[in-house]
C-alpha cells in the first residue's frame, strides 16, 4: 500500500481543483439568486392579484384559525386511530391476498382467481365510491343483531378493502423478486412450503418492498381524511363544521397543514428506509 500522508498534488491537479471550486461557488450563487427571484415574483404575483385581500381574509384569518384549531386537532385524533387500524388491517389482508396469488397447486385455483379478481377490482374502483358503498350500503342491510355501526368503523373497512389491493400487489412483486433458488435451498433443507415462505421468502421480500410499501402508507395517511364524507367527525369534517359556522375557509387550511405535519415523519421515514435498502442492494450478493 502506498503512503498518502505526504502526498503532494501536482500543479495540474491543483489547477483542476481551483477551477472546480470556482465552478462550485458560482453554481451556489446562481441557485441562491434564482430561488430569491422566484419567491419575490411569486409573492408579488399573488398579492397583486385583484382578489388577494379577499382571499387573505377568508383563507388566512388568524382569529378563525385559533378558534378552529382545538376542534380540528380533536378530529385529527380520530384520523390517527382510524389510520392505525387501517394499517394493521391492510398489512394483514394484503399479505393474505398476495400469498393466495402465489399458490401454484391447481386445488387452489378458485382462491387464486378470487385474489386476482379482487385486486383488479379494488385497484380500479375509486376509493370514494368504495366509501359510499360501504358507508351507506352496509348499514342499509340492517344486519340482524348488529346495532348502529359507527361511521369510523365503516371508514376503516372501506380503506382496508381498497388499500389491501394495492399492498397485495406490492407484496406479490416482492415475493416474486426473490430468486427461486432461495426457496429451493429452503425446501432442500427439508423446510415445508409454508416454513420456506415464512422463514426465508417473506422476510427478504418485505425488506425489498419496504420503500413502495411506505409510499402506499403515506397515501393512506392522507386518504383517512376521506372518512369525513361518511359523517365521521374527523379533522376534515371538524374543519367543515367550523367553515360553516364562521363563513371562513381558514379551518380547511388549518386541517390541511395538520395533515402535512402528520405526514412529514412518515415521508422522512420512508426516505430513510429507501436509502438504507438501496445501499444494501448495491452491496449486493457476491455469489
Amino acid at each position: 500500500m502506498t503512503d498518502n500522508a505526504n502526498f503532494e498534488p501536482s500543479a495540474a491537479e491543483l489547477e483542476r481543483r481551483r477551477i472546480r471550486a470556482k465552478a462550485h461557488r458560482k453554481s451556489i450563487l446562481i441557485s441562491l439568486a434564482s430561488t430569491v427571484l422566484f419567491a419575490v415574483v411569486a409573492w408579488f404575483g399573488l398579492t397583486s392579484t385583484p382578489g388577494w385581500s379577499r382571499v387573505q381574509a377568508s383563507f388566512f384569518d388568524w382569529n378563525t384559525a385559533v378558534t378552529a384549531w382545538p376542534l380540528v386537532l380533536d378530529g385529527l385524533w380520530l384520523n390517527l386511530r382510524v389510520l392505525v387500524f387501517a394499517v394493521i388491517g391492510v398489512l394483514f389482508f394484503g399479505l393474505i391476498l398476495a400469498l393466495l396469488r402465489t399458490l401454484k397447486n391447481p386445488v387452489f385455483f378458485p382462491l387464486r382467481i378470487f385474489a386476482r379478481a379482487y385486486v383488479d377490482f379494488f385497484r380500479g374502483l375509486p376509493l370514494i365510491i368504495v366509501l359510499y358503498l360501504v358507508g351507506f350500503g352496509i348499514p342499509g342491510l340492517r344486519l340482524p343483531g348488529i346495532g348502529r355501526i359507527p361511521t369510523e368503523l365503516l371508514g376503516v373497512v372501506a380503506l382496508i378493502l381498497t388499500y389491501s389491493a394495492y399492498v397485495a400487489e406490492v407484496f406479490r412483486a416482492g415475493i416474486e423478486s426473490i430468486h427461486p433458488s432461495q426457496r429451493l435451498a429452503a425446501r432442500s433443507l427439508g423446510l415445508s412450503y409454508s416454513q420456506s415462505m415464512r422463514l426465508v421468502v417473506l422476510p427478504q421480500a418485505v425488506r425489498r418492498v419496504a420503500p413502495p410499501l411506505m409510499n402506499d402508507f403515506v397515501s393512506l395517511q392522507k386518504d383517512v381524511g376521506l372518512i369525513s364524507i361518511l359523517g365521521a367527525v374527523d379533522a376534515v369534517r371538524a374543519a367543515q363544521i367550523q367553515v360553516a359556522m364562521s363563513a371562513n375557509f381558514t379551518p380547511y387550511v388549518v386541517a390541511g397543514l395538520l395533515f402535512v405535519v402528520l405526514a412529514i415523519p412518515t415521508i422522512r421515514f420512508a426516505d430513510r428506509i429507501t436509502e438504507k435498502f438501496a445501499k444494501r442492494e448495491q452491496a449486493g450478493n457476491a455469489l
Partner: protein
Amino acid sequence: MTEIDWNNPRLKVRGLRKNFDQKVVLGGVDLEIYPGQIVALIGSSGSGKSTLLRCINLIEGISDGQIWLEGRDISVADIDQDEVRREIGLVFQSYNLFAHLSILDNITLALQHVQGKNQDEAETIAMQWLERIGLADKAESYPDKLSGGQQQRTAIVRAVALNPKVLLLDEVTSALDPELVGEVLELIRDLKATGTTIIMATHELSFARDVADWVVFLDKGVVAEEGEAAEFFANPKNERTREFLSRLKAL
C-alpha cells in the same frame, strides 16, 4: 473405514426417466451409492446432471423409474416429500445462503425448524461446523460479507449439519473464482473422511479422480460409462467418454 455392505445401497435409482414436454432429458438412468462413498457425476453441459440430482431430491417430479433410499421406495405417489428432503441434502452452484440471515442463523434455521432442536443445541452444532471450516469468527456476518468460497462452504456445512443420508452437490465450485475452488474441494475431502455419502456433479476431473470412489459419465441423459475412479480415467472404454475427457483436458 468400515466394510461396505454391498447388498444394501444407501441410494438406488432404476430406470429413471425425465421428460420436459416432448424433450427427453433423462432416458432411463441406473445408479447406486453405498454408505460413505463419493460418486462423481460428470458429463457435458445439458447432459442432465442437475436434473438427475433434482429428481433424487424430489424437487423435480420424475416421468418413470424408481428411487430407493435405504431400501424405501421414495418415488411412490403418496410419499411425504418434505420428510424425504430432510434425509437428502442438496447444495447448488450459487445463491444458496439466505441473504437475510447471519451465517450462524443460516445453519441453525433447519436444525431448529426441521429437526426441532432448541436454539442452544442448534448453535452448538453450527459453531462446531463453523470452527471446523475456519469461519467461527464470521458467525454473525451476513452472506454478502463473505467471499464466494466462504459462502459455498457455509452452504455445504449447513446441509451436512443436518446429517443427511445422502448429500447431493451440484457443481458447487463452478461459480467460484479459480483461487477459491481449492478450499471448497478441501471441505469435500474432509467430509469424505468423516463418512458422508456424497453424489457430486462436477467438472473438476482431477478432484473426481482423487476422491471419488465411483465415476458416472452421463451423456445425453443416459449413463454412457461408469467405473471405479482410477480405472475410469486411466482406461475409458466408451468413445464418447474419451472424447469428453480429451475435450476437457484440452481446456
